[in-house]
């Protein structure tokens, strides 16, 4: 990808020396070095939990390093608060947006640095400044819209404008492409180009190899808190980067035999539904999943996939349409009834929907079945049976640490929490499985495990609907890929024929194929 580099090696803007950061006994950063030059795009690559965000929080003054020091523009600097970082020209765009929902775009941008006229906040001049900045860098926003009403892409642009408004010369972008289409990612890369041309330096925190290759000049790899290496991005390929990130060779392809799908397990026809703001978000959606196949649903967050799954599983009431599970109509039924019709699901947000973190692991494992004969009779729980089942499942699914039946689920790591959910779903042994972003926040080992499990289910003849924001995951696992856009299915492509650009186009609403 022909990319202009604006790196000025003669000027070092950021130098982090031997940064160590501990949280109690846990060493998040173990002596990390980082050097960034003017006009450079420097990526920090590492798996989830490697310590990338921690390092940047140190740079931004949200954390104090346990040891080590930082130089900004050649001068030693003690960055003990975000205010200090902002003063030094460092700005951070967080992975999870830090926006005040009911406030407008303009208010969010100026918050903390509001222009005043007498006693009042000068919203008029603020608005003008916002428009000027947004035009200068090509960051299209609606200055008067409320955050709760705008798209994720625009929210991100607001975050970037916040940082630019404060005169940042060094921008830290933390996992910026999590919720963007391939096209929007392209736009972001262009914006990064504008910024570096203007002399700004960018630090990119990411685990997405493709984007590093497309946008970064240099890349520092961190693994389990330790500094591994800094490479010139032009001189390495994706596989090499992956190997450095994980410490071993990684296979991305999943072993999947050809298989003829069986009868219909899930048939959705003409589904209409509203989102949490009572706006229609599903506009006549049709989708079918057959036994023995994985159907991947690709799409940018916010196009209705969340609501689709909620309606299918009964957590939300659709306004019109039909949902048939194994030939039985379940539209409008309660979650309990739908569950009994033969569906199992791995929820999108495991901490929000999948687990009661304060409950013990054992109690979480019976979240759907506590009413069944095996675990209770006449309303009284059979504690021994529950305990026995928990021990069995923990062993079978390799949940670590062993003996955690009685521990609150919140104490387990993300990967183990996901295993608990999967263990629970497997025991239901339904013919239809819906998995939503099942590998979000998991490390490579756990991701491999979950992918293996999904393919196993499909090989056994179960129907699997995979909803994910990770296009790579969809492409490597699905037999059939469907694209959702604006509440409808706009394209359907067999898995092996899938082309990322084509899919990206459909995800953004262009070129409908059917």
């Amino acid at each position, binding site marked *: 990808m022909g990319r202009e580099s604006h790196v000025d090696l003669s000027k070092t803007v950021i130098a982090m020396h031997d940064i160590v950061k501990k949280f109690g006994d846990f060493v998040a950063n173990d002596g990390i070095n980082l050097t960034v030059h003017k006009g450079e795009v420097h990526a920090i690559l590492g798996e989830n939990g490697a310590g990338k965000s921690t390092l940047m929080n140190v740079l931004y003054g949200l954390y104090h390093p346990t040891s080590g020091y930082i130089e900004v523009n050649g001068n030693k600097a003690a960055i003990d608060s975000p205010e200090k970082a902002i003063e030094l020209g460092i700005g951070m765009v967080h992975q999870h947006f830090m926006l005040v*929902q*009911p406030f407008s775009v303009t208010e969010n941008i100026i918050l*903390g640095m509001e222009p005043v006229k007498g006693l009042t906040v000068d919203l008029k001049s603020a608005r003008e400044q916002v428009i000027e900045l947004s035009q200068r860098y090509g960051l299209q926003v609606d200055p008067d819209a409320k955050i709760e009403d705008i798209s994720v892409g625009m929210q991100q642009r607001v975050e970037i404008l916040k940082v630019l408004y404060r005169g940042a010369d060094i921008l830290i972008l933390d996992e910026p492409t999590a919720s963007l289409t391939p096209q929007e990612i392209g736009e972001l890369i262009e914006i990064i180009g504008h910024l570096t041309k203007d002399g700004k330096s960018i630090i990119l925190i990411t685990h997405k190899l493709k984007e590093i290759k497309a946008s970064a000049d240099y890349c520092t790899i961190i693994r389990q808190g330790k500094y591994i290496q800094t490479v010139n991005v032009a001189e390495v390929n994706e596989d090499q980067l992956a190997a450095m990130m994980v410490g071993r060779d990684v296979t991305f392809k999943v072993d999947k035999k050809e298989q003829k799908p069986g009868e219909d397990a899930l048939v959705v026809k003409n589904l209409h539904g509203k989102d949490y703001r009572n706006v229609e978000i599903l506009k006549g959606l049709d989708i079918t999943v057959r036994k023995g196949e994985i159907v991947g649903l690709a799409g940018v967050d916010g196009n209705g996939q969340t609501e689709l799954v909620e309606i299918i599983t009964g957590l939300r009431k659709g306004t019109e349409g039909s949902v048939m599970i194994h030939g039985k109509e379940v539209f409008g039924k309660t979650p309990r009834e739908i569950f009994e019709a033969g569906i199992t699901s791995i929820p999108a947000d495991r901490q929000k929907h999948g687990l009661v973190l304060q409950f013990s692991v054992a109690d979480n494992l019976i979240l759907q079945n506590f009413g069944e004969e095996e675990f209770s009779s006449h309303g009284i729980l059979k504690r021994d049976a529950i305990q026995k089942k928990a021990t069995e499942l923990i062993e079978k699914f390799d949940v670590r640490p062993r003996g955690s039946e009685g521990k609150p689920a919140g104490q387990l790591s993300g990967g183990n929490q996901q295993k608990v959910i999967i263990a629970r779903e497997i025991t239901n042994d339904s013919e239809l499985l819906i998995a939503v972003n099942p590998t979000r926040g998991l490390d490579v080992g756990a991701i491999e495990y979950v992918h293996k499990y999904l393919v196993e289910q499909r090989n056994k003849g179960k129907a699997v609907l995979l909803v994910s924001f990770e296009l790579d995951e969809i492409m490597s696992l699905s037999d059939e890929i469907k694209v959702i856009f604006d509440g409808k299915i706009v394209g359907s492509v067999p898995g092996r024929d899938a082309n990322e650009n084509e899919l990206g186009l459909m995800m953004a609403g262009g070129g409908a194929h059917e």
Partner: protein
Amino acid sequence: MFLRNLGLLINATMTYTPPLLLAALGSCFSERSGVVNIGIEGMMTIGAFVGAAMALTCGNPWIAFLVGGLAGALFGLLHAMACVSFQADQTISGTAINFLAPGLAVFLCKAIYDGSSDTPAVDISAKLPKVFDGIFPVGSFWDNVLSNYSVAYLSLVLVAVIWFVFYKTRFGMRLRAVGESPEACDTLGINVYRLRYICVILSGFLAGLGGAYITLATVSQFRPIVIVGQGFMAISAVIFGKFKPQGALLACLLFGFCNGVKVLATSSNVVSPNLISMIPYIVTILALVLFVGTARVPAANGKPFQKAK
């Protein structure tokens, strides 16, 4: 006859509303910044006692009024320390204050005033002054409507002032932001702790003023039962008014008006006074069900905020 009753009604409203309004405005500060403060009741009580005691000691109603407010502010500080610095459960801390403050008030009263749980009556010269007093013939319509304590009018002005602060000033914008998303404010270099401290102390101050108003104007002495439920009515007013100062004003006026109706109806002895007393509360529920519906609570309300270090 109608005019006379209307006058009495307005008078009753203007009697009951101001202390409620002061406390409600204080509650707005606290709640909007994200700290639940159910200790308003206690803060009013201590303000009521200190105000009365101060007036008996120094004879100046304004000093007494302010010192009453300061007493409330002190308990506000306590609540802030517990909730902001120690991240205590805000409901529990508020409950503690509802025990401590009234208990302390009566305790001090007994200690200072010879074991009596009531203070002596405050002399009229030490009471808050009335505006337009004596200008109109006593008992006439205009006398009833306009002859109110000056602080009553002050409290109405205060609504406008607080509205301005909330929606036009920098402080107000940050205060509202902190109540919605303290994490975002933290990353922008806004001192969440300090802002919340200020808001909670202010809520105590205003609640104290509300209590002092009652002993320095309406009832001219402190008795243990002088504050009984007004604090909770103030909280209800804030929720009813959707956490906005202008909403709180309307809610307090509604409560005051209902109380006025109660006073009038009781004096006419047609229906049991107890049934009439229920009216404000039933009206509120009906109003909620029919008109108001859900109030959007500030998103960070009730959750302790901790800076990561």
